[in-house]
């Protein structure tokens, strides 16, 4: 702030530089603000003579020589200009009044900017100061916990794809996208957000209600995130350099699993014993059964023996304890077996470094910002890292008084190495995270032999470590191959070259009228190579290589005319905008795969000599929208504001005749504090009431090929070279009637500033009703539809919510500044109507139900009734029915899972979520912390369910809670007996629901700005050093869970249950230095 004041003053002084006249007296005094604090850097000038000036010092004091009858003008950015007649006084103390108008935040809104007070919509803004604090490659991560109404769902730590899921004001669509539109510098953006360097971002605005975003028409239904990149802010050139170095580490700990191999064997042995015993065999037979099969991987056993037991003795005794004479490690004459800690072997800390430099400056005609950045972000497993190089130039040039051009170019190159995992597919042995989290604690990671002295060593082969991939004399019953090995020997690279450009021309032919034409492009060329090594999973093909080139090209054209006018002599002012916008996207792929690599290390097709499985393919898909837009804004006396917008859009996703949709909004705001009757209410600095209503559209059914043309039937084909015949099949059944999904939003709220900045905030209530939902409707399978679904417009959903933002300052003095912020959001989601063909019972799935009156996140789940203390069997609730299907008794218990009733069990959505933070700056030091939280929701912990398997699932890890299983001696427990029961298998049971409450420490930053006087000599403008901890901790209901991974609904194999297959969140601790000169 101070810097800006100085600059402003300097500017003013520069402009008024004329000679001084005589008859002077010397005037001294102090300039302070209303609170009495000194104002440094305020300009004090002689009115009417621009050469007489001075500036207040750090204590707010000035000394100036002026004519005794002159008038002093004091100006300072953020305060109203103040004039004082000298009238011969030699000491004049001046109190500056804060200028609300000047201080007021300007926020970036659709097609322009608005002052906060005139804005009728609902928006939240994050500025560069807080964005720069985040240690993240992805700028949208800065929205977590800082913006009310915005849910950021990302438990992923993958440095190469850290794009979080963003949900603004709930979930409005069933099958269509719920993601907001991203707009970068006014142009829709579909590239990867990580290709934008967060250091180049000046601000991010989240437009939440229709009044703010309806002008984006069809694309604004789920809210809009506006990203604005930096421009020069000062006349003098400024060079800014920032360097940071940090360490990435795994944030989410492992579940509390059994890690002691003996304990694991004992538990498994007991499970096998019970399996046989409770199937009706004698105790002796059951011991025999467990003894016989415990190592037999083809009959439900574990496969591996890693203990040496004295000849002829039992491995595990009838007391279910390991033979005390057993020793860890087993030698079968060829190999030596001892378990490894896969978790520790796979995960490690890594280094992160980032350098950014920017140069900016402006003159009266030219504004220039250029930057370059390098990021090298390491992952927590091997061969997982992200390198990014970015360069940006933003330049504006005022060619003529009536003509301005602007150019913005951003180039980004990234080179990432991608770990082998897929968090959307359940149970892949090739997924490094899945196997590390689920591997039983008895399995070796490496193949070992014994040397001559009998000491084990890890086998190597031609310099390569030999991993245990079932290549010894034992076989694991689960997890084929070895994903840690594959992650080492395979190679997956993505190379992305992304150019984002914007060219604009602005004409101002007459005062108030602005005509502008803008062209924006995104050209994203990403080449991916995947090498599956002959030393890994692709051994039978002697190595495989997949090469893929994706080209995404979007071009957006905008032609806008805006007219602003203050009607002379009145307090009416209007602002009218009209325009045309067209967006076109081309998505192209070129792909090849082959095998038999001559050189096992080269992942290129030309190194692949295979002939049988060679594949190439390519395609082009296009998407286009166009539309006309208009907006009118009216302002009376800076007190009453009204706005209206309209947009008519067409989308290529719909058939001719169903393509155009009309959208628009109305909004009004009343700045109550401008009214006379508020003049005396001194504790209210600002109070605004606002209301808006609008209609927006959504056409985004998804990114898969079929959703480019969902209105049409689509066919695929193949060729049989032995019969020389083509064959063709219907692959997708389209719906030519398909049209826009519309959402109707209503927003009412208030913004306020109280007690001189001690308490600011806003409260907003909203409803969002989505109608004609784009929905992939299930059709009876007996209808033989190729995908089982047809896209339709059906049903409606209501989201209602409230958002509260509060912030303020606790201490605000010259040296110490302490502020805090808090936001909370609540919303509920309710299905209002569904297709007529859906019965009153709704659309049921294995774990959720869509039903009128319920939410989109409504559980439909079997309920656990605890353990039968007599038998130890798990009990489930069911509703007993008579022969006609009428329920005659509810909530009965049964141990037959197939009889258990699926019950509706309410929404899992949190009741409340948001964030809070605080920041203190004092004597050059600054300390800030930002937290986010979620309360009152539930989370289906399918990963825990997998770790609590009562069925065999041989070789898979066990949570320690299974040790609490029922036994005849331990009947008071809620964990059923371990008896190999397969009834539940992967079905969802409410037993595995936990609270999704969490508190996360998103960021803590401590910085020190070296006093200017110390660095000035070195020619440095400012110097700040800092340490920052990103994603420091998450407190959750169970160790191992990260409720930020998904919305919370799921099963063992779907949704939130897939978390162990995901790239867990990372913690980052970074130190950095920022220099300007």
């Amino acid at each position, binding site marked *: 702030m101070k810097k800006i004041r100085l600059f402003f003053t300097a500017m003013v002084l520069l402009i008024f530089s004329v000679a001084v006249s005589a008859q002077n007296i010397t005037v001294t005094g102090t300039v302070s603000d209303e609170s009495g604090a000194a104002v440094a850097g305020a300009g004090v000038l002689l009115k009417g003579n621009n050469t007489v000036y001075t500036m207040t010092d750090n204590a707010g004091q000035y000394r100036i020589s002026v004519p005794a009858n002159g008038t002093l003008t004091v100006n300072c950015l953020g305060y109203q200009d103040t004039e004082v007649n000298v009238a011969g006084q030699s000491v004049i103390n001046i109190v500056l009044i804060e200028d609300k108008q000047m201080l007021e935040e300007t926020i970036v809104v659709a097609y322009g900017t608005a002052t906060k007070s005139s804005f009728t919509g609902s928006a939240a803004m994050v500025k560069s100061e807080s964005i720069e604090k985040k240690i993240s490659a992805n700028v949208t991560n800065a929205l977590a916990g800082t913006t009310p109404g915005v849910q950021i769902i990302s438990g992923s730590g993958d440095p190469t794809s850290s794009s979080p899921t963003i949900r603004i004001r709930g979930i409005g669509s069933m099958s269509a996208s719920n993601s907001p539109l991203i707009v970068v510098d006014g142009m829709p953006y579909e590239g990867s957000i990580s290709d934008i360097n967060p250091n180049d971002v000046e601000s991010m605005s989240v437009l939440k209600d229709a009044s703010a975003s309806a002008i984006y028409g069809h694309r604004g239904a789920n809210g809009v995130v506006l990203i604005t990149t930096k421009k020069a802010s000062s006349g003098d050139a400024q060079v800014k350099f920032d360097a940071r170095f940090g360490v990435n580490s795994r944030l989410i700990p492992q579940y509390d699993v059994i890690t002691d191999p003996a304990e694991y064997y004992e538990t498994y042995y007991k499970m096998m014993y019970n399996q046989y015993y409770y199937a009706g065999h004698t105790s002796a037979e059951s011991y025999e059964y467990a003894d016989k099969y415990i190592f037999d991987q083809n009959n439900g056993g574990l496969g591996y023996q890693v203990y040496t037991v004295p000849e002829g003795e039992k491995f595990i005794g009838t007391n279910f304890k390991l033979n005390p004479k057993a020793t860890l490690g087993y030698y079968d004459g060829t190999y030596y077996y001892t378990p490894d800690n896969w978790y520790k072997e796979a995960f490690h800390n890594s280094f992160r470094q980032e350098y950014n430099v920017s140069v900016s400056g402006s003159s009266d005609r030219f504004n220039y910002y250029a930057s370059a950045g390098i990021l090298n972000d390491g992952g927590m497993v091997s061969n997982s890292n992200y390198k990014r190089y970015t360069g940006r130039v933003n330049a504006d040039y005022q060619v003529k008084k009536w003509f301005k051009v602007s150019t913005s170019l951003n180039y980004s190159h990234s080179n990432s190495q991608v770990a082998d995992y897929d968090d959307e597919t359940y149970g892949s042995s090739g997924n490094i995270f899945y196997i590390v989290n689920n591997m039983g604690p008895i399995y070796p990671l490496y193949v070992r032999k014994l040397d001559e002295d009998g000491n084990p060593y890890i086998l190597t082969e031609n310099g390569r470590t030999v991993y245990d991939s079932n290549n010894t004399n034992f076989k694991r019953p689960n997890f084929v191959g070895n994903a840690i090995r594959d992650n080492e020997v395979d190679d997956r690279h993505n190379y992305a070259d992304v150019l984002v450009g914007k060219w604009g021309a602005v004409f101002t032919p007459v005062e108030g009228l602005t005509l502008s034409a803008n062209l924006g492009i995104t050209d994203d060329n990403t080449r991916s190579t995947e090498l599956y090594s002959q030393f890994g999973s692709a051994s039978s093909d002697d190595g495989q290589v997949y090469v893929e080139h994706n080209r995404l090209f979007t071009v957006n054209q905008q032609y806008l005319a805006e007219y602003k006018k203050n009607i002379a002599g009145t307090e009416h002012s209007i602002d009218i905008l009209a325009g045309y916008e067209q967006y076109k996207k081309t998505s192209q792929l070129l792909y090849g795969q082959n095998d038999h690599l001559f050189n096992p290390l080269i992942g290129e097709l030309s190194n692949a000599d295979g002939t049988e499985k060679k594949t190439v393919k390519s395609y082009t898909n296009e998407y286009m929208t166009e539309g006309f837009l208009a907006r009118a804004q009216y302002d009376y006396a800076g007190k009453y504001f009204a706005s209206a917008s309209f947009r008519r859009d067409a989308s290529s996703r719909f058939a001719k005749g169903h393509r155009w949709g009309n959208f628009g909004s109305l909004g009004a705001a009343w700045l109550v504090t401008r009214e006379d009757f508020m003049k005396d209410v001194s504790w209210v600095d600002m109070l605004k009431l606002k209301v808006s209503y609008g209609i927006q559209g959504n056409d985004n059914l998804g990114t898969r090929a079929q959703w480019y043309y969902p209105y049409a039937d689509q066919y695929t084909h193949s060729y049989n070279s032995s*019969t020389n015949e083509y064959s063709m099949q219907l692959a*997708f059944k389209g719906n030519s009637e398909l049209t826009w999904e519309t959402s109707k939003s209503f927003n009412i709220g208030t913004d306020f500033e109280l007690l001189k900045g001690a308490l600011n905030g806003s409260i907003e209530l909203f409803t969002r009703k989505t109608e004609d939902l784009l929905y992939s409707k299930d059709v009876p399978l007996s*209808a033989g539809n190729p995908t089982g679904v047809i896209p339709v417009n059906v049903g409606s959903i209501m989201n209602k919510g409230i958002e509260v933002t509060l912030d303020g300052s606790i201490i605000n003095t010259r040296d110490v500044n302490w502020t805090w912020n808090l936001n909370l959001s609540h919303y509920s989601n309710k299905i209002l109507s569904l297709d007529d063909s859906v019965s009153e019972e709704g659309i049921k799935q294995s774990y959720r139900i869509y039903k009128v009156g319920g939410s989109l996140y409504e559980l439909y789940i079997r309920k656990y009734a605890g353990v039968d203390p007599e038998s130890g069997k798990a009990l489930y609730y069911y509703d007993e029915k008579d022969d006609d299907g009428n329920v005659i008794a509810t909530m009965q218990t049964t141990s037959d899972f197939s009889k258990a009733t699926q019950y509706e069990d309410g929404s899992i959505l949190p009741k409340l979520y948001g964030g809070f933070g605080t920041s203190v700056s004092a004597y050059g030091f600054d300390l800030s912390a930002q937290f986010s939280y979620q309360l009152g929701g539930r989370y289906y912990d399918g990963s825990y369910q997998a770790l609590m398997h009562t069925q065999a699932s041989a070789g*898979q890890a066990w949570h320690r809670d299974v040790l609490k299983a029922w036994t005849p001696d331990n009947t008071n427990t809620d964990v059923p007996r371990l008896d190999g029961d397969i009834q539940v298998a992967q079905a969802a049971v409410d037993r595995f629901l936990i609270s999704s409450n969490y508190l996360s420490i998103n960021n803590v930053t401590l910085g020190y700005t070296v006093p200017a006087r110390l660095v000035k000599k070195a020619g440095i403008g400012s110097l700040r050093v800092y340490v920052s901890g990103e994603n420091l901790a998450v407190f959750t209901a169970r160790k191992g869970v990260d409720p930020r991974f998904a919305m919370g609904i799921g099963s063992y194999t779907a949704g939130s249950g897939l978390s162990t297959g995901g790239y867990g969140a990372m913690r980052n601790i970074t130190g950095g230095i920022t220099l300007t000169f």
Partner: protein
Amino acid sequence: MKLNKIYLTLAAGLAFTACQDIDEIVPQSDRMLESQVKETNTIVPSRAEASFTGMFTSIGKPYASGYNTPDDFAFLVMAFCNDLEGADALIPDTGYNWFSVCGEYSSRNANYRNPYIRYETPYKLIANVNTFLSGFPEDVTDENSIHLIAQAKALRAFAYMQLVPAFQFVTNLDGPAVPLVTPETEDFTHNPRASVRDIYALVIEDLNYAVEKLEGFKRSSKMYIDQTVAYGLRARANLDLGNYADAAADAARVIAQYTPASIAEVSKPSFMSIDEHNWVWGYDMTAALTLKKTDATPSSWIRSFSGDSYSAACQCYVSINKLLWNKIPATDIRKQWWVDEGLHSTLLDGLTWKGKGDIANLSINNEKEPFLPYTNVKFGCLTIGTTTNDEDFPLMRVEEMILVRAEGLAKSGKETEAAQVLSDFVTTYRDPQYSVNGRGLSLADEIWFQRRVELWGEGFGIYDIKRLGKPLVRFHGTPESTNIAPAFRFNMAADDGWLLMRFPQTELDTNFSIEDNNNGSLPVMDQNPTLRDGVTD
């Protein structure tokens, strides 16, 4: 003012805009819109046949259901599951067994993938046939069209015959089976389960049409249906319906056209190419199809010789239950279709896997584990160690028809003739020392025994058990009696309601007239240890 210039610029911009036509956006990819299909058919009229061929391709297409999992390959999955839910075919109880739901019978679950695929697959084919048939005018007379219609109808019959026995015992003619869907069906959401009788009426009608209209039709490949296939399908339908004499007569029409595989021919792993002369009808798997996913193929599961398979790489070999294998005489070449306890089979003699001998014990990391006792070597691969997995799959063999004929004759009062047919076949083509009464079984059980051995792995397992009203017998009371994994070791009574599948959730949610099967309960290990099926006793 220089407004002219400005307007010029804007006009230029708008002119550029006008070039773009939102109506011209069509895919340039493997996907075609209806308009592009029509365009193609106009330029290249022969492409119109592709949608007909497509119906046949769909029978074993990897990833046909879009699950993109190794157990997703359409009808061939259904066939495989029929065997794994039966008594004679088994896969180890390990985490690599994607079909353990069949072994343990947990497939009666409305939310599982496996039963979904087995329900959805035939209905997709039925819908394709119905759409195809609707494309012809009612008074179509040209011979080519008639042949296409006849084949399509036979395919529809085939689809229903795969579907019905899963949901109802075919012997229960009035029992509810599955919804009946024809080109006339309009309301899919209130389409109740039709009786076995009603559906088989359509099946027989379709097959009668096919038999009549395909007279003299010469097909271009054995992937298509000619009159013999139609006869063969009708023979199966008649067997299901208990029309034994008709079944025998239909089967005889097929037998007249084909010769069974000789002892020499089945003394090596085979049943892999549509060109084998004993195949009446087969699925022509192409590399173009398997490239989509080589592990979602029969070669990845039932064949023990693929270098890119679950069977070999994960030791998930499909083995025969030794209850049955023990009953095969040593003089029968089919004894060698499975390795013995010591992993030996004469079928392996002289074979190598990428140059390496002793295939049974061979271990190649990531590719080939040693065989297990009773691993099948019946089904071969075109190249041992192949990674293309494009082996064809038999949908009908003349040997089956001989056994159908024998059964038809035996059950229509012509026992002597039946015994002769059976004896002639086995003696000539499988076991020179064969005697029909050698095992002391009834003729009907002897024929079933022959079906179980001869047609093992080809999709008849549980359907035969249910058709014949037999119990499912996987073990004889002791763990030692069988090689099936303990988790899959149980017997089920012939009328156990759990033998019938359950409808997928989507069907229950959207077709309001469905009443699900709900009898029986999940079998428990070692249950019903005293049940016997008459053949493996």
